[in-house]
């Protein structure tokens, strides 16, 4: 307890500023940054913050997940659908380490997030105190930036920096670790948003000469191809991409995280790139004479064997992160800047053209893929239910007007291949990290971020059980997500590789599953199992029409493989349509 004299002294020194605790300063900083939703999980060291949170309920809506990993994935999905940074709280030690998978996931997929972890009191740091982890050291390789706060008066400035760094340039997760005593200490609260750091300038100078060179290369190309990625969505350049493609008549292919940046139904859309991507854009990457890569990073799942990748093409790389340029693929022209800025300047310089003959080459290959893979997968007519057919039906029933969430593996590839996207940022998936268990908490975050939109998640029976406890979060907050379990009783993608590359030796991939309908009803969530085709469409419709959450357990073909496939280490030219 402070004496009256001490209290007066504090008041004298405040220069009229409010004196609050560090814990309250954290919440005030979030309010100043326009945050209204937090995902998290309390614990010993973060109790001062949670205690104060009760007084901020009107401004800050806290979602208690059932595990910190769930909070991290939900906050990421929230960020992906709202364009606002995702905020996540956890306590010290295990609370903080449980976030790591989620942080790494957001880091690889460039999603702006601010993680606030609590730390043991500062004089215990370094002593292996109860629930102490060096989370700064642990999170360093998977955060864009991190910092520890041991003094309450550092809270406003450090959090302002955190928001600036997370959201600008190539976005990414930042982690701020705050000791318990800093949360309890008092400070004079003043908040100024940060938009400048001497050592970090995300606004890059526009090199007009490079853009002019790009226009010349584009105007002279015979077989140009646009490869667009997540950067287009992050910089909100979908309209510019559309204008650019339509003016130049250049066909467009998308990466996994680029999906929904260009309408799937557009005449210039050629499909999805990479290991399980579409036949034509993969194969014709090696026929193109010019590749215009926009906001993508030539991930190994896109390029296959680099020695045989795009050897006939000159490559223009429009990319905000300089470290991605010439990292995997050596390019002919680099434009290190924001996708939207570059496209805005490029569009007036390019000629109006069409490339009908070149596009015809794509359509011929599309026909082959359609006959050999797409039709049998999405409209099999007989036999077991196929993943592709479930995805196609949902796509048709919702007319593409929904946010689609996936887990990782075959379910994800089926969505990427067969869902017809019509509006930007309508896919939430774990790309770079490929985190199983992402789908269920991500669906929650997507729905909370966009409550007016239908959110449908496609999740395998394996991934569903990795974060199944988040059904409790759905129950508590009445989150109206539609969860489709594509249930084949296997870890499908691993089983597919065992089938194709390990002589069909199914080591630890077959699952003995619980009855998901019983589990869901334990959480008060309506659920149903479908195993025959005749009931599939009506069941999907029933699920989509239901008001609240819903779990639909769809029993699908147990041993189906996702095709086409570029085998690991193979070239994009070696994409195979059939197996066996």
């Amino acid at each position, binding site marked *: 307890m402070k004496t009256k004299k001490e209290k007066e002294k504090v008041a004298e020194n405040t220069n009229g500023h409010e004196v609050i605790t560090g814990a309250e300063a954290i919440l005030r900083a979030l309010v100043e940054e326009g945050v209204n939703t937090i995902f998290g999980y309390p614990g010993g060291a973060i109790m001062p913050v949670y205690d104060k949170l009760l007084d901020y309920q009107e401004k800050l809506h806290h979602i208690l997940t059932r595990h910190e990993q769930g909070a991290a994935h939900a906050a990421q999905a929230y960020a992906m659908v709202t364009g606002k940074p995702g905020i996540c709280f956890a306590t010290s030690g295990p609370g903080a380490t449980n976030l790591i998978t989620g942080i790494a996931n957001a880091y690889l997929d460039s999603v702006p997030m601010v993680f606030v972890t609590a730390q043991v009191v500062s004089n215990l740091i370094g002593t292996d105190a109860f629930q102490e982890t060096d989370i700064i050291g642990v999170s*360093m*390789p998977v955060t864009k930036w991190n910092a520890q706060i041991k003094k309450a008066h550092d809270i406003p400035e450090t959090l302002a920096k955190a928001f600036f*760094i997370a959201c600008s340039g190539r976005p990414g997760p930042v982690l701020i670790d705050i000791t318990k005593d800093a949360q309890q200490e008092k400070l004079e609260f003043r908040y100024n948003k940060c*938009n400048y*750091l001497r*050592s970090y300038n995300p606004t890059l100078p526009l090199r007009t000469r490079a853009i002019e060179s790009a226009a010349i290369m584009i105007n002279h190309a015979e077989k140009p191809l646009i490869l667009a990625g997540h950067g287009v969505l992050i910089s909100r350049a979908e309209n510019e991409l559309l204008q650019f493609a339509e003016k130049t008549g250049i066909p467009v292919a998308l990466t996994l995280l680029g999906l929904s940046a260009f309408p799937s139904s557009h005449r210039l859309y050629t499909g999805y790139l990479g290991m399980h991507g579409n036949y034509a854009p993969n194969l014709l990457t090696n026929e193109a004479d010019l590749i215009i890569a926009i906001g993508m990073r030539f991930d190994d799942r896109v390029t296959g064997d680099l020695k045989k990748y795009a050897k006939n093409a000159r490559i223009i790389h429009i990319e905000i992160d300089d470290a991605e340029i010439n990292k995997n693929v050596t390019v002919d022209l680099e434009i290190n800047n924001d996708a939207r800025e570059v496209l805005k300047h490029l569009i007036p310089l390019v000629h109006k053209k069409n490339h009908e003959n070149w596009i015809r080459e794509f359509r011929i290959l599309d026909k082959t893929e359609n006959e050999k893979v797409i039709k049998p997968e999405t409209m099999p007519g007989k036999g077991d239910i196929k993943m592709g057919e479930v995805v196609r039906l949902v796509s048709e029933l919702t007319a593409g007007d929904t946010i689609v969430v996936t887990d990782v593996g075959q379910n994800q590839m089926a969505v990427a291949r067969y869902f017809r996207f019509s509006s930007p940022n309508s896919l939430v998936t774990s790309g770079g990290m490929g985190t199983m268990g992402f789908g269920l908490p991500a669906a929650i975050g997507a729905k909370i971020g966009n409550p007016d939109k239908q959110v449908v998640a496609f999740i395998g029976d394996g991934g569903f059980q990795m974060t199944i406890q988040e059904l409790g979060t759905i129950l508590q907050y009445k989150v109206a997500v539609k969860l489709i379990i594509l249930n084949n009783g296997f870890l499908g993608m691993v089983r597919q590789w065992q089938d194709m590359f390990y002589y069909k030796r199914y080591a630890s991939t077959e699952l003995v599953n619980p009855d998901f309908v019983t589990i869901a009803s334990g959480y008060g969530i309506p659920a149903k199992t479908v195993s025959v085709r005749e009931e599939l469409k009506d069941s999907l419709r029933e699920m989509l029409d239901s008001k609240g959450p819903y779990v639909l357990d769809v029993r699908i073909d147990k041993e189906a493989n996702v095709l086409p496939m570029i085998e690991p280490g193979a070239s994009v030219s070696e994409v195979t349509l059939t197996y066996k």
Partner: protein
Amino acid sequence: MNTQEFTISIFSEDHIGITNQITIILTRRQINIESITASESAVKGVQILTIVVMTTPDMVQKVVKQIQKIVEVLKVFVHTSDEIIYQELALYKVRTKGLMSGNLIDRIVRDHNARILEVHPEFMVIERTGHKTQINDLLHLLEPCGVLQFVRSGRVAITRQVKELHAYLEEMDQANQQRPDDFDSYN
């Protein structure tokens, strides 16, 4: 693999953890650090790290871009050994008895430009600055006398370029002033 020696000079804000962030980037790529030195720079509050690595020209470009990406890093320069002026410093603790034969002390001081820092009945401490080869030459010369301890510092290097760090810092500040958003300063 054509590996060669590169000297990476990293100017950064003086912030705890920078060295850790840099070594993470190098260890991921399996690049061994030949030497590392941290010190203040000519600009107040700016730290300089000098790291010597053996790698390929292609790889050094990739890691330098990743190091430049670290939020607190101001500017990174990479140089081959012929592009910089550099020195290393070594200390040798040698048995006094062994040094007393012939004109060895005279040679050490005149030919090797070494200094004697301390004389003790049992040992002497000798200091030499120079390039790694020169330091090793003196070590070989002293070995028969009985070297009790030997330690060499990391490389310190000065670049030949005319444009200095403060010029880059001014450019960074100017670029910020041209930004459209108003900058609320902390006061």
